[in-house]
């Protein structure tokens, strides 16, 4: 009993990558190093108060996620630049690091990290400073539940999807904080647009996913992936998938829905006043958010880690990056919508369509 309670305290078994603290789900190899690490892992709780241990585990897990995201984002930025470049008869980064400019993102990041930390006068200082952190955190936390493969998931809670949407909705607040805290009219306009947009597009996004829940009969991400063992939901829920793609792009504020930071209108929207490290956080979280959206698409519609021959997480990443590629492709192709058109599109087309999809799904399920 006591153990069960305590698990709840620090967020269940709170591990990083599931190494199997209790050993029951360990399917990894049996190398000596891992064995010894495991021993230490199992022994650690005896050395300190339970709470410190839990916190420590959380910290380690968090750090792992952050490092993973950073690497992922670096790759994604490079990936996008290459893809967009080739679509626009350019070549994208070429020189830094030798092979096709692979180190370009790293160089850019370093540059951002080394820049002067500017806090303009007249800003709401605590808000201004906290905003990028909150935006970043809210995206990072979502990674905790994403199942990269059958065993590679930080925490498999039984309402993973809701969790992801809940924490990503916090992004809105962070962005609002940035817009308000900057004390800049462009930022404020951008923040208001962003809030309106995210709040609106969250509705069809969630509705489009409801069809998947109905089919899978679970909210657990792993459970949903398991349910797609034989047929991906993109085939059962094509309309839902399309709505998801559109609303997802809207949710992460990318072209053609990048209205909040439309550089030709609002300069840079809510992060106009940010530079250096703080800007890097926004940048990081934008791409991290894209990856969350892609991962969710993979999990919800594209069968997650299922696939022949290759190991699960490779399939997962392949699918997620295919979705990423779609987003980049869209970005290279379309102009930006106007704010009213975007809202009208959301409320007048996506939302009814999502409801219809839900209705049809329900009817079909009832009929079968």
């Amino acid at each position, binding site marked *: 009993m006591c153990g069960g309670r305590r698990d709840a305290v620090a967020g269940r078994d709170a591990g990083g990558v599931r190494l199997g603290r209790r050993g029951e789900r360990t399917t990894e190899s049996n190398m000596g190093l891992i064995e010894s690490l495991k021993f230490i892992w199992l022994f650690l709780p005896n050395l300190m108060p339970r709470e410190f241990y839990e916190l420590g585990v959380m910290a380690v897990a968090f750090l792992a996620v952050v490092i993973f995201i950073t690497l992922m984002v670096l790759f994604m930025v490079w990936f996008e630049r290459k893809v*967009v470049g080739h*679509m*626009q*008869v*350019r070549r994208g980064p070429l020189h830094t690091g030798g092979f096709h400019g692979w180190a370009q993102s790293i160089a850019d990041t370093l540059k951002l990290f080394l820049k002067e930390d500017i806090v303009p006068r007249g800003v709401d200082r605590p808000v201004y400073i906290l905003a990028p952190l909150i935006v970043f955190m809210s995206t990072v936390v979502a990674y905790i539940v994403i199942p990269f493969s059958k065993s590679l998931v930080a925490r498999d809670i039984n309402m993973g999807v809701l969790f992801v949407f809940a924490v990503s909705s916090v992004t809105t607040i962070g962005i609002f904080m940035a817009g308000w805290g900057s004390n800049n*009219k*462009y930022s404020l*306009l951008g923040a*208001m*647009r962003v809030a*309106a947009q995210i709040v609106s597009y969250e509705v069809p996004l969630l509705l489009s996913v409801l069809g998947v829940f109905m089919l899978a009969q679970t909210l657990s991400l792993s459970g949903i992936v398991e349910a797609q063992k034989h047929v991906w939901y993109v085939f059962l829920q094509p309309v839902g998938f399309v709505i998801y793609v559109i609303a997802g792009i809207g949710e992460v504020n990318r*072209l*053609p829905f*990048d*209205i909040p930071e*439309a*550089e*030709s*209108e*609002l*300069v840079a929207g809510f992060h106009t006043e940010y530079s250096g490290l703080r800007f890097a956080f926004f940048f990081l979280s934008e791409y991290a958010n894209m990856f969350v959206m892609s991962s969710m698409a993979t999990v919800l519609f594209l069968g997650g880690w299922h696939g022949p021959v290759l190991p699960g997480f490779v399939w997962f990443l392949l699918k997620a990056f295919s979705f990423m590629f779609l987003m980049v492709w869209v*970005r*290279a*192709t*379309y*102009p*930006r*919508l*106007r*704010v*009213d*058109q975007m*809202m009208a599109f959301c409320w007048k087309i996506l939302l009814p369509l999502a409801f219809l999809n839900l209705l049809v799904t329900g009817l079909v399920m009832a009929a079968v």
Partner: protein
Amino acid sequence: MPELKTDSLFINMGPQHPSTHGVLRLGLTIEGERVVNVFPDVGFLHRGIEKLAESRTYIQTIPLTDRLDYVAGMSNNLAYVLAVEQLLDVEVPRRAEFIRVIAVEMSRLASHLVWLGSFANDLGAMTPLLYCFREREDILDALEILCGARMTFNYIRFGGVARDATPAFVEKTRKFLSTFDKRVDEYEELLTENAIFVNRTKGVGLLTREEAISYAVSGPVLRGSGVKWDLRRDAPYSVYPEMDFVIPTGETGDVFDRYAVRVMEMRQAARIIRQALDGLPEGDFTAKMPRVLKPRKGEAYSRIEAPKGELGFYVMSDGTASPYRVKIRAPSFINLAALPAMSKGALVADMVAVLGSMDIVLGEVDR
């Protein structure tokens, strides 16, 4: 949410802003997202070209004109040269006239391409910009072969042009033209057939025919509003009367019409260049001119259909080696006056589209 307005907000768009294409300041009064008032504030790039000309000789003024509309320098050269030639009473050789037409139309293409790319970029489509610059690169390469410069040409001179058009230039131009029409089709596929683009531009920034005339706008902005007015046909100069081309016009005068007019003009310009290349006569590329130019006392006004509209040069000579007074009628400047009329009730995003559709160049606005 844009409907949820409370107080009106005043924001400065520019002088440093990504979509003012230079140092234009727009004072916007907005309520939520809706623009209730806009006034353009110009003069940040004032270089006093008109005044400078008074202390230069006639020929030294030509390079100054290159800096007016710096994406279409040839047109500025031609307009100025035509004005001075009226005072000089010089006979321009036929070959030179043809080369001038080719050069000016190439400049028109370059200008429209820059406009198209940046306009699409203003609307958020990044790709057309790079496509357009790819085409423009070819044009600039060709012009480089012609006169050695890529942007500040200083090419069209009194009595003719600076250098002859070499076969290399002709070949390069033909090669460029052979692919150009297909490329324009490609842009139209990317934009004209794109629902988002059409939604962003149709019915936005309306300028009625009457308003257009009363604001004295010219060029594609005027034609977009449905007025069939083109100086190449209505006040012909050079050898344009020999060319066969169509003057495209719009219907409603919205952003889309202005866009469509320019795209169609690009096709027509290519057609004119082809005709000019085919009919390029042999002969001198310049008339015999004295070393020191001292035009007769008097005044002259010339106007041509520049890419942006009617570009006019008023030159007053007192018989000395430098002009007494030069006044430039810059199309961008006059067109800009119609901006508040066009952007009544627009959203902030529409402002960008409207401003982009006017195709202003600040070098010309502020002079």
